[in-house]
């Protein structure tokens, strides 16, 4: 081996082996046979179909899956049929009025009329050979007066629809099932937003039902270019996920990427948009939010109209919007409804709140331990005086308070609203009075922790606040170990990691890093509404302009 080869071997880049975690084999892990996975066609014999469905749905133990058998009189024959549905998922009135009644009553009336016309004494031309009717077409076209009906030939499709609230009609001698939409499960009504309340603006929020949510979007964006594509995610749960975008605005590559990521999720179940968010975000290990999650249809509509893509997950009242940049998490749904001067003032307040929410406790520890010269003399004396009776070091003191604050906050969120008031009072007493009286913490620290908490609440996005709550502890530790050197190190690493983030190909700090022309972008500072003429450049939309150069044309007419 020559030196060059040795050198190459030593320094050759070897790709990291993929980490694979395997659980020990368990007898409960049943291997999925390939035959089971193959799509089973519907049988022409009803009894066989029913047996198949009984096995599939474990009907011996499953109480809510119903099979209603009945006889369908067609011409002079009587055909056996069965209706499959899940109790609680369907509207029984719809089943009775739109499915069973037409099948049984209308059909029998038609038959009776036909028989009456054939009675003796009436002039009728009897057709010696009655033409054979196509039963499948006859049922589909003439017997079920419902707008949403489909013919399925495979069990898998039928089961998916029945699980979603359809009822399936199986008729003997036909290898086709008729799936009729009879959804009627109970759900929450559209109500006011809980986490994103605003003063001026619509007071509607998304609910758990995907169709209600998409209709809320349709109601606002009254345009045929709004596309709502549906994908099923989860091998077991088959959760419906709707991808919404405006076809003539959103970038095709962005839409393609969203679809690609969602289509390539190899999971058993998907229960919420929070779960999906973690599965599709670019850097899953970073705690900072990379997708917007909102419960406001007006906010989602605004993003859609700007060329972003919304993802609605069935069963979750929070809709995801991608791509997201950092400044989105400091924006509120209120911003666009207010005068831009006031909006910018609020945005400035939020930026200040963000700074203090992350750094204030860390800075307090750093300053009191290492950089006392920064504190004005009078204040320094006051702090020293307040801390005189405290037996603990600052770090211990602040950790006690921060953890107590987090505990009270968590407890307040998890209990019902009647208890949360009590918890608030207890918290205030512990934080505000008892701890000081017991000389556990100094009053100045209470101010620091309380101010940090308030700053955290001023940030509109819950995910961002949660992330900040974690990083705050790191900054406290760094401030304690090395003062501003530690804080600087923490900030540098933090920022390096954040600048490495991207959301669906868009830099996390766009349009500032990398810097783009702010005339072509909607930056953090909000322009007057008549100057918001362009969609964000970093979205590369098909329609870069949102308005004409002079949006207020009426002004031109004034002379």
């Amino acid at each position: 081996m020559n030196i060059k080869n040795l050198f190459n071997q030593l320094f050759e880049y070897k790709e990291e082996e993929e980490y694979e975690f395997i659980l020990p084999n368990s007898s409960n892990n049943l291997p999925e046979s390939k035959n089971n996975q193959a799509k089973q066609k519907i049988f022409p014999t009803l009894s066989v179909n029913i047996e198949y469905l009984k096995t599939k749905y474990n009907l011996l133990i499953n109480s809510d899956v119903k099979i209603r058998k009945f006889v369908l009189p067609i011409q002079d024959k009587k055909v056996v049929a069965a209706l499959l549905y899940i109790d609680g998922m369907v509207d029984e009135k719809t089943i009775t009025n739109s499915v069973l009644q037409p099948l049984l009553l209308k059909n029998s009336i038609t038959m009776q009329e036909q028989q009456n016309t054939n009675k003796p004494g009436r002039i009728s031309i009897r057709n010696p050979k009655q033409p054979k009717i196509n039963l499948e077409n006859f049922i589909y076209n003439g017997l079920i007066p419902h707008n949403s009906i489909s013919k399925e030939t495979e069990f898998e499709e039928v089961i998916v629809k029945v699980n979603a609230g359809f009822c399936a009609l199986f008729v003997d001698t036909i290898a086709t099932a008729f799936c009729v939409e009879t959804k009627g499960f109970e759900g929450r009504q559209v109500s006011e937003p809980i986490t994103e309340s605003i003063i001026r603006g619509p007071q509607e929020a998304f609910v758990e039902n995907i169709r209600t949510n998409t209709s809320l979007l349709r109601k606002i964006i009254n345009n045929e270019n709004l596309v709502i594509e549906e994908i099923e995610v989860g091998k077991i749960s088959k959760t419906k996920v709707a991808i919404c975008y405006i076809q003539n605005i959103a970038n095709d590559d962005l839409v393609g990427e969203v679809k690609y990521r969602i289509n390539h999720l190899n999971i058993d179940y998907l229960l919420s948009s929070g779960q999906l968010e973690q599965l599709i975000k670019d850097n899953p290990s970073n705690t900072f939010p990379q997708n917007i999650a909102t419960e406001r249809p007006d906010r989602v509509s605004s993003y859609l109209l700007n060329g972003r893509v919304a993802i609605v997950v069935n069963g979750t009242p929070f809709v995801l919007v991608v791509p997201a940049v950092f400044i989105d998490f400091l924006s509120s749904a209120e911003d666009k409804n207010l005068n831009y001067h006031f909006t910018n003032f609020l945005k400035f307040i939020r930026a200040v709140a963000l700074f203090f929410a992350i750094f204030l406790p860390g800075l307090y520890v750093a300053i009191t331990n290492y950089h006392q010269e920064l504190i004005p003399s009078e204040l320094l004396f006051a702090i020293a005086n307040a801390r005189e009776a405290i037996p603990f070091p600052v770090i211990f003191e602040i950790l006690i308070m921060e953890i107590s604050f987090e505990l009270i906050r968590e407890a307040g969120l998890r209990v019902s609203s009647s208890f949360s008031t009590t918890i608030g009072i207890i918290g205030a007493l512990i934080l505000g009075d008892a701890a000081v009286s017991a000389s556990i913490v100094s009053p100045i620290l209470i101010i620091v922790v309380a101010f940090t908490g308030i700053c955290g609440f001023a940030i509109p996005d819950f995910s961002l606040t949660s992330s900040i709550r974690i990083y705050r502890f790191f900054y406290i530790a760094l401030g304690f170990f090395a003062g501003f050197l530690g804080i600087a190190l923490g900030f540098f690493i933090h920022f390096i990691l954040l600048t490495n983030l991207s959301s669906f190909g868009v830099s996390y700090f766009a349009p500032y890093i990398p810097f783009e022309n702010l005339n072509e972008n909607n930056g953090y500072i909000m322009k007057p509404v008549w100057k918001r003429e362009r969609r964000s450049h970093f979205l590369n939309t098909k329609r870069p302009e949102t308005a004409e150069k002079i949006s207020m044309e009426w002004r031109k007419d004034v002379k």
Partner: protein
Amino acid sequence: MINLIYIGVIGLIFVLCLNYLFQKFPNSDIIDISEFLGGKFLKIIMGIIFIIFFFLVSYITLTDFANMIKTIYFDKSPLIFVLLYFMVGIIVANFVGFKSIVRTICFVVPFTLVSIILALLAVYNEFSLDKFSPFFGHNMQTTFLNGLLNIFSLYIVTYYYFLMPLLKDSFSFKKITTISYIISWLLLFFTVVSILTIFPITNDTEPLNSLYLLSRRIELGDFLKSLDALFILLWLISIFCYLSVSIFMIHRIFRKLTNITDEKMITLSTTSIFFGLCLIPFNIAISRFMENTVYRYLIIGLIFIGCFTILLLANLKFKFKKGSSSHK
């Protein structure tokens, strides 16, 4: 003062010349150009020289700054404690990647610039124009001939030799180099002017960073005094950025010399070497000699003369080659 403007203009002309000379070599840095000119031998020689150069420059900057931090805030802690923080920053930054480092710099630079200007404005009442005198220098020779050696302070041009392959679009090279040079010169100008106008010339021997001493004099009313720590915080972040870029450059050159696939794999080893280098206890005389003589003449010799000559000769070779091929 005149000398500062003079070297600023000379530096700008130099940068414009670099722009012209690099036109023939899009997507190539000085290592590639050395290979083009003198084959692998010159490439390896230049690579090794630059690796040593970046190690030395980073060493001088870090030890200077770390010693200052230790003296001010950690007088009871060993230097290794302070150095470790910088090493952690460098390692993480280089693991994450160059793009993130550059983006962080984009964020930090405006704040650093503003902090220096603010420091300057905050002490404006202490300005004394007398300290500029003699305004035109002692004589022509000291201002324009000996003073030319001060061009070493514009060693930002070092990075221009490696910039081209890092750009998405080689046409923006001119714009980037010119703008960054002007920003760098402005930073230098404000710093020197503020120091000159406030401190007596004897302060030159002060071991602490002059800018830090300037920031100590900032007082905003009777309430806010000694705001130096805030400036230190900002400058610390700038030093993190600077060191990360320098170590990245070492990785990049090493990668070119050895053909390794990913420079991230040598991050730990490079930083360990750098850490070890910073821990070598040099006596004050050697440190001063390295800072004042080796550093200064290495920059002038390598960056302003050596590399420029290579670039010039490579251009001539390119022209000659092109001429001979078109002749055939």
